């Protein structure tokens, strides 16, 4: 419980860490319709492409210094020698980031979906997909950031970006299914499957990477 309190207090005190990405997301979503013609009736069609890319970029931004600060001030050293397992601490850290950044962005994304498409059904159906997707993105970008912990975070996230391209294809197919009133639960199950694997695997891999950086 202490590690959860630790991460929550840290993020709450550092509003730039969680509020910044949320504001950037809102800014992108508000700016998007301004760049196309107001009379464009197909605004709703391109909305999802912008939504996924916006979430992708914002999650990249949100995880920029997920481990860097703790590495620089020696907190990671203390985590590594503590009796609590390092993968667990990392998993909690990622979860807190998702709770404070991923969940609000998923809610705001659903509201934007309602505004752009005028379909409450679509907005409700897209919400669980947004929740799962944001969690997957945070996990993968955290892995990227851990990779390049001492060499600047951008490099690592760029390396991991291609890993998410298949996920974007699945997201596109899921939206088409929802729009055509087809069963989209298969895609949700697929996303959940991916999440259930990486939720265990990525903290474990990150713990090895961090131990290597601490040497």
């Amino acid at each position, binding site marked *: 419980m202490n590690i959860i309190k630790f991460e929550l*207090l*840290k993020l709450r*005190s*550092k509003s730039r860490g969680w509020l910044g990405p949320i504001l950037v997301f809102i800014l992108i979503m508000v700016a998007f319709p301004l760049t196309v013609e107001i009379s464009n009736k197909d605004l709703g069609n391109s909305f999802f492409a912008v939504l996924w890319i916006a979430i992708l970029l914002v999650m990249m931004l949100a995880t920029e210094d997920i481990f860097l*600060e703790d590495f620089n*001030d020696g*907190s990671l*050293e203390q985590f590594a020698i503590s009796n609590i397992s390092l993968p667990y601490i990392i998993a909690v850290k990622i979860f807190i980031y998702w709770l404070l950044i991923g969940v609000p962005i998923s809610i705001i994304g659903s509201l934007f979906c309602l505004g752009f498409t005028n379909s409450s059904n679509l907005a409700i159906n897209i919400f669980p997909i947004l929740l799962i997707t944001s969690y997957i993105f945070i996990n993968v970008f955290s892995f990227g950031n851990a990779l390049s912990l001492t060499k600047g975070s951008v490099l690592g996230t760029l390396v991991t970006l291609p890993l998410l391209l298949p996920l974007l294809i699945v997201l596109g197919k899921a939206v088409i299914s929802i729009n055509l009133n087809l069963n989209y639960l298969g895609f949700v199950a697929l996303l959940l499957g991916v999440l259930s694997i990486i939720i265990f695997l990525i903290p474990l891999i990150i713990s090895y990477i961090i131990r290597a950086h601490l040497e």
Partner: protein
Amino acid sequence: MHPKVKATNLSYKINEKKLFQNISFELMAGKAIHIQGDNGSGKTTLLKIICGLTNQVKGEIEKKLDKQICFLGHKNALKQYLTVEENLSLLNIINHPDLKQHLIEFKLDKSLDINLSSLSFGQQKKIALLRVFLNNSDLIILDEPCVGLDNQSQNYLCRFLNKELKLEKSILFSSHISLDINSEKLNLSNQV
């Protein structure tokens, strides 16, 4: 009686540069070892090997510990953007009954609501040392604990560590300053 830490023929090198070679020692309960050596002789590396943060190139290390190691290295593990009180809360020592006494001794009892970034280097070191003072560990590892501390605080630290030795705790520390702690000396400068 088993030693708390037993190192046998420990060696470490960076690329081809040997830092130390074939270091062996035993640290029993209630004993302290003062690691000495020139800059770059491997004092911090040796302490990190004992903590399990770094792997030795050769040799073995055995630890018989019931509790987690209490380690204070060059980095204080404190958050600059939080107040002293919030940092103590993160360290999980805010409700410790002995905290107030140490804060008064370090003249930090009136600084709880001040941001850590507003404190001097020495004062920040004292906050980090509170984690050591309120430890629940049977092995204390300190890397240059006196850096930034005034004479009064250094004496207070020595008195505390001597008390911990009487409680059968084991202490490993590196320091360029000679400290009034009943300890064996291990000089790394003579080990290559």
